[in-house]
């Protein structure tokens, strides 16, 4: 997947996969990172124990188009709103898409969408579905 830049060069879409806080369940995040790479995207995996600040900093430094956050211990409602606020503060909330995956209860879907999360992938979503949806979001 690639888009021409203004200067005519081609930039591959860049995706950041991140894990926040103390949640150590990284199987899904790592598998997705491998699959995205195989699908031809550039992937930056942050590793564990990130903060909203380090995630947003990395997103800016690496000039990513999409941030994918994985939550398996139930802290999404703590971290995602913070990330969205930081992106807004940095003025990149519109251009950087955020998607969330993991053990996300259905009752939280609406709130997450309302604060600007582009998509939520609950447990049991296939990698194929995730990549397809990310592709749509990236245009």
């Amino acid at each position, binding site marked *: 997947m690639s888009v021409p830049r203004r200067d005519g060069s081609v930039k591959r879409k860049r995706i950041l996969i991140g894990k926040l*806080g*103390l*949640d*150590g*369940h*990284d*199987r899904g995040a*790592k*598998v997705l990172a*491998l*699959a995205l790479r195989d699908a031809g995207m550039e992937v930056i995996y942050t*590793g*564990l*124990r990130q*903060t909203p600040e380090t995630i947003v900093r990395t997103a800016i430094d690496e000039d990513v188009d999409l941030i994918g956050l994985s939550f398996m*211990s*139930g*802290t999404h*409602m*703590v*971290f995602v709103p913070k990330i969205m606020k930081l992106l807004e503060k940095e003025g990149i909330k519109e251009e950087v898409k955020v998607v969330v995956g993991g*053990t996300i*209860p*259905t009752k939280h879907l609406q709130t997450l969408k309302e604060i600007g999360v582009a998509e939520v992938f*609950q*447990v*049991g979503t*296939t*990698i*194929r579905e995730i990549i397809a949806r990310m592709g749509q979001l990236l245009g």
Partner: protein
Amino acid sequence: MKEVKSSLSEWEKNSLKPWISKHPERESEFKTRTAGIKVARLYTPLDLEDSYTDKLGFPGAFPYTRGIYATMYRGRLWTIRQYAGYGTPRETNQLFRKLLSWGQTGLSLAFDLPSQCGYDSDHTLAEGEVGRVGVAINTLRDMEEVFEGIPLEKISTSMTINATAPIMLAMYIAIGEKQGTNISRLSGTVQNDILKEVVARNAWMLELEPSMKLAVDIIEYCTRHMPNFNHISITDYHFREAGADSVRAAAFMFADAMEYIRWTLKRGLGVDDFASQVSFFLGSYMDILEEVARFRAMRRLWARAMKNTLYAKDPRSLQFRFAACTGGSMFTRQEPTLNLVRGALSLLAIVLGGAQSAWVSGYDEAYEIPSPEALRFGVRTAQIIGEETNVANVVDPVGGSYFIEWLTDEMETRIQEEINNIESRGGALECIRNGYYQNVISECAYQWQKSVETGETVIVGQNRYVEKEEPDLKTYEPDPRRRKKALENLAKAKRYRDRTRVREKLAHLREAAEGGKNLMPYIIDAVKELATVGEISDTLRDVYGEYRQR
């Protein structure tokens, strides 16, 4: 055998061939579910080498293939021990009492992530996690509340704790003493397996070497003072949950075991001084016969390794004692009640495999930490298998099955080959440092995911026979006040304690750490003065440095 051989070829010619020409088989080849071992159509006496005494022998005797005790479950069923812990210490105490009232026979304590990683509830990294996936423990007061009214002398407790294991064990010891129990009588298990943390479970704290040193401190302390306590529970469960296949996970676990043993021997203990209290924790999944064969193979492999490689003499050092749990990652979000079936079948494999204790993952695993109802179903599943099915009435009831014995041999060979591979690469610690374990696991996880998505691996309700409707499931609701309560408990303990004495004990701990002493006595002293998990961990982080993920 000659007779079997000739009648087999006769059967192939006269029965099999005409049958198969009219009734083709479902697949061109059949493989075990996670190790991918190709299995034949039929196994016969020809597949068994004639070496009953060498390979199988009798239960309670070398090589322990058939079980580590002579009568196995005819004497006593395995310990039923659901992994549990919620929110505040009070809530967890109530949960423990409930579990015991349902007929659970041991306790298993789940800590929240800040407690596991060495942060107090008021630390910024603890945000959102206080009392979330287990109980929040900051000081001895919290732990006392968890075990209020529960006599430690009468019940064994397993603690899933690793990086901060010395602190939590110190608290457990302090409570035992306060209850008037001689600590030599305490029984239970502290997981204390830091190697798998940095590879798969990820609740790490200190750099690798100091982490190993602390693990050995616990082994040494328990060996000298708590002979009935399992000072380590070396696991393959988290390797499998992270994606490793059944063979690789087992080999990683055994290679880790060898590493812990080498480090402990260097401390000056003899192998028979401590090996009897080395225990293991394994995962069990859906390919029942693969799992059963694996448990049996591991018992034999361990006995042989301890005898032939480490020259252990005490029979107890050769006995592979293990707890096992049904793999949570195989439980689906779709049709969650089907996970009750998966849990039961997977527990059946554990029981046929001869475990010493077991638990079943919550059927609501894909949604939340287990609801009390899910925990009760876990206890009841064990009771049904133990008291209705009769599978526990005969020792090693599957022993002698041509297929099971063939697969047991195959498993042992394959696991041993991978252990040799790891040893030739410099051993467990080196293979973790250079990322070998991590890469193998990620690759396995990726391959598995692909095989699920192509439908090659079937998961009912998820990639075949899929229902459209969302289930209506009542899941556990975390108490929103749990953080506030934890902070209140912490503030109260801090007001109560003698600050000068806390500072003094932490200074002693620091000196001991810098001087390379066994830290257990110093940590016990500190927790008794209500030093917090965070304060003790900060002291250790300061001396030893924090682990940095590669």
